[in-house]
């Protein structure tokens, strides 16, 4: 079992004819993703890796039954493409694009409200259900099928945790990159709720970093609503105040956004917190005990 994505999901790739779109389509197909169509306006009728390309999302939905879409679209074009995709009735949109203006992201989120669509990103590495399918840029060889859910703000840290878990024989049900921007489309709490309801997930790992208040809000959700155990990791305790560390959302202002604030919120909610990536594996093993089946 998994959340949001499995081997049958009919996937659309937007921006499929670009350099990154083409390369990633190849990796996704090799992994087993059921890619049914691509879209690049003006390139309808072409093919990429054997995948038919359409001019509009509506065409890809009508002719190929696309139901989920991954974006390799330039930042300035993301808003228009997202609104088109929402209107076409797609149920999962993964925006890999970095540097999407944050006001555009907020507008997209507002327009998606109540439309029955899940959005991941911007600056998301994507979503992977190991052994079945992946949408986005996550390297397949760093994940393994299993029963642990992973939610990460950072792409590369999702890979780091994925491969550390895999080395310890701990596979994942689904791993999700929620995006590293100041205002991600979907909050950490909403994704925790999905994993909590998934019969294929026994425990969830949240991989956070300095900046914003996602972790603090999620801690409240965990304390009040979550039934499954959660292990948290927060990166960046050596980051000095006022320095933006790459991600638009990763900056500390005063007490706001510090690892201290996040760790203390998690601990109050009964969540075990790792200070370094390798500690995540130890905490998971402790939490699951010996009764745990890795597959």
């Amino acid at each position: 079992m998994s959340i949001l994505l499995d081997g049958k999901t009919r996937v659309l790739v937007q921006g499929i004819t670009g350099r990154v779109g083409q390369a990633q389509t190849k990796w996704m197909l090799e992994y087993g993703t059921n890619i049914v169509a691509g879209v690049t306006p003006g390139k309808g009728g072409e093919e990429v890796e054997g995948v038919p390309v359409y001019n509009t999302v509506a065409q890809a939905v009508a002719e190929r039954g696309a139901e989920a879409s991954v974006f390799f679209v330039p930042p300035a074009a993301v808003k228009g493409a997202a609104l088109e995709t929402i209107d076409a009735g797609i149920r999962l949109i993964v925006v890999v694009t970095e540097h999407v203006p944050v006001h555009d992201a907020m507008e997209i989120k507002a327009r998606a409200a109540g439309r029955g669509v899940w959005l991941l990103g911007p600056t998301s590495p994507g979503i992977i259900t190991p052994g079945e399918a992946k949408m986005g840029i996550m390297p397949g060889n760093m994940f393994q099928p299993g029963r642990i859910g992973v939610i990460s703000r950072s792409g590369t840290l999702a890979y780091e945790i994925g491969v550390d878990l895999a080395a310890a024989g701990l596979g994942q049900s689904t791993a999700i990159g929620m995006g590293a921007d100041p205002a991600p489309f979907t909050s950490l709490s909403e994704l925790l709720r999905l994993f909590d309801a998934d019969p294929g997930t026994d425990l969830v790992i949240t991989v956070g970093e300095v900046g914003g208040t996602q972790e603090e809000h999620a801690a409240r959700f965990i304390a009040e609503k979550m039934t499954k155990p959660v292990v948290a990791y927060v990166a960046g305790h050596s980051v000095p105040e006022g320095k933006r560390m790459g991600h638009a959302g990763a900056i500390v202002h005063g007490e706001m956004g510090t690892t201290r604030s996040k760790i203390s919120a998690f601990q109050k909610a009964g969540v075990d917190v790792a200070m370094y990536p390798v500690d995540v594996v130890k905490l998971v093993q402790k939490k699951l005990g010996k009764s745990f089946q890795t597959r």
Partner: protein
Amino acid sequence: MRLYEFEAASLFRQEGVPVPDFAIADSPRQARQAAEKIGFPVVIKAQVLSGGRGLAGGVQTADSPEQAEAIAGRVLKSAIRGLPVNRVMVVPKAAVAREFYLGVTIDGVVGCPVVIMSTAGGVDIEETSRNHPEKVTSCQVPILSGLSLPQAEKMARKTGLTADESSRMADILHKLYNVFRKSEATIAEINPLALTTKGDYLALDAKMEIDDSALFRHPELKISPEDRIASPLEKKGRQIGVTYVELDGEVGIISTGAGLGMATMDIINQRYRPANFLETGGGISEELLYQVMELVMQKKGLKAVFINLLGGINPIHEGAKGIVRFLQSHPTDIPVFARVMGNRQEETRQILRGGGVEVVTDVATEQCMAHLFQRLGGGR
């Protein structure tokens, strides 16, 4: 990108937010002339991209032309939190009866703008909301319809203001929200908003940060981000298209992602100190990593470099060629370690090994870093 106070004040004024008349001076003589024109007393304010100016002596009152010139002379020679002061703002000193706070920022969890109002202005808003939550009220704004005047007025009434005061406050907040939206800001803040003894409202400070990702469509702001970076190495990073943050340690970091870069910093910090943070983002090429090596190796006092390459979106095998090309043309005694995983890991490892990079193949970053610690010996 943070704006200087005078830049934010100009944007506020364009939208009708009441700001005092002000002048900008980059010499003591200019400051004196501006002050004479404005009339005494005046306040002379250092223009730097940092908070805490008041405490650092960057905001001072002058009662005469001589005093204005002397103060401007001192302030213009000073540095605030390490940032040199190149300009001062000269404003008339206001007679303040009461101070408020108005702000617009982004609620990152809900994903919408949020407006904040407080009857305790002039102090840190986070502190006020912790210690006197009753003095702060905030409200999420539906971005598609925007902030309505009645919504803003209702907020002001909640802070205990009278109907007349609330309507004036709401009007200013509404204008501030418009500035925030038009310039695609992440923060727009007036702290304090003063009620003068004459009964006028005046924004006595102006703080704004513009979304870096939106700057491309705001040529009217005339902002060149590179001009605002003090460190030459950080400026160079911006020019080649990576995030480089200069730090004061001895181990250089190159990472293919920001989160991984922060985790790598944390791990180095167990025994040594990071000399920099560098993340490439998703645009790796041979040339980029050549330039990245050139940048990282320039830092003084470097004892080792740790390269953390995870192949997701990036063609890391191309990057590896750039690293090797740099090392071949710039031989060094500084050990360079690389940890490589993900798409094309074997190919990438081979290229690096062939070029004198010590490739470590343990799984986790921490296990790989242990090799670097061992080489350097000791640590703290």
